[in-house]
């Protein structure tokens, strides 16, 4: 299916989930409330006509001053039908997102990465620990309020380290 067909199909099939579908730059996008996310993902994976059997990526966006603050973005692909879908859901700071490890097992590590970098928890995840950073690390480095050059060394440096921490008030982030 091409992007418009997916959008039409989703609109017909999921009338009760509060979906907001559109085609953005030739790519099908669906925005879904976080409460309905688990049900939507399950249908997308299991229904033959949709058949999204490949969980490509999950990431998040920190919109800092927007409410709700975070946007979690899923990228799905179907190797049978050769079509793709991007799913977005908005979450507040500290709010949990349902895990998708039951559907795609690769989601395990990807969700851990999102927790590591953005501090978004996934409820029902079997092992919600940091994936890339070390356990001693404080904070979540891809949040916009984490100073971009703040370092947390594990080995005590042998001589004084140059002051590198940026003042985040002075940093202007361009937002379209």
């Amino acid at each position: 299916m091409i992007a418009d067909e997916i959008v039409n199909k989703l609109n017909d099939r999921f009338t009760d989930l509060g979906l907001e579908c559109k085609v953005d730059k030739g790519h099908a996008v669906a925005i879904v409330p976080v409460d309905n996310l688990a049900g939507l993902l399950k249908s997308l994976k299991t229904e033959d006509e949709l058949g999204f059997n490949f969980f490509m990526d999950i990431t998040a966006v920190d919109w800092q001053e927007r409410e709700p603050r975070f946007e979690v973005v899923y990228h799905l692909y179907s190797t049978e039908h050769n079509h793709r879908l991007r799913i977005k859901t908005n979450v507040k700071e500290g709010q949990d997102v349902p895990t998708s490890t039951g559907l795609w097992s690769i989601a395990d590590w990807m969700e851990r990465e999102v927790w590591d970098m953005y501090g978004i928890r996934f409820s029902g995840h079997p092992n919600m620990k940091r994936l890339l950073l070390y356990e001693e690390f404080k904070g979540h480095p891809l949040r916009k309020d984490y100073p971009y050059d703040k370092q947390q060394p594990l080995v005590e440096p042998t001589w004084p380290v140059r002051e590198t921490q940026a003042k985040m008030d002075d940093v202007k982030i361009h937002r379209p």
Partner: protein
Amino acid sequence: MEMSWKLKEKPPYQSAVDRVLGWSRKYSIFPYPFITACCGMEYMSVASSHYDLDRFGAGLPRFSPRQADLLLVVGTVNHKLSPVLKRVWDQMAEPKWCMAFGACASVGGPYNNYAVLQGIDKIVPVDIYIPGCPPRPEAVLDGLMKLQEKIQNQKHDLFWK
């Protein structure tokens, strides 16, 4: 009575010892390649036949720090890896030298962020820095020759303390 095998003062033949040991050590460097990133490609090209590190007596990489003289830190070292680097350095037997290969190992290179150690000299003492991202093989050979010069002109103890 103090029992010590150490020589109390420098023997008169010390300068000859320095010269001989310096000469033999500089031509028998066993490197330990600690390769973490893209600079590793450059190390491979230096080590293989076209540029041939073996001409300088440094052609036999030892993959155990216990047998190595030269710690070659090739590539980006991040904070998560830094205890490993420190440990490898501590495990090497004296006499030992350390080379920071490329911009990342020297100063953190293009990365100034939460993850990357801003130069390995924060945790291990470095004898020679090779700039470049990645350095040309000629630059590496130049660095190696400078290191040999340094070893030749060093004071060497006959009995290492």
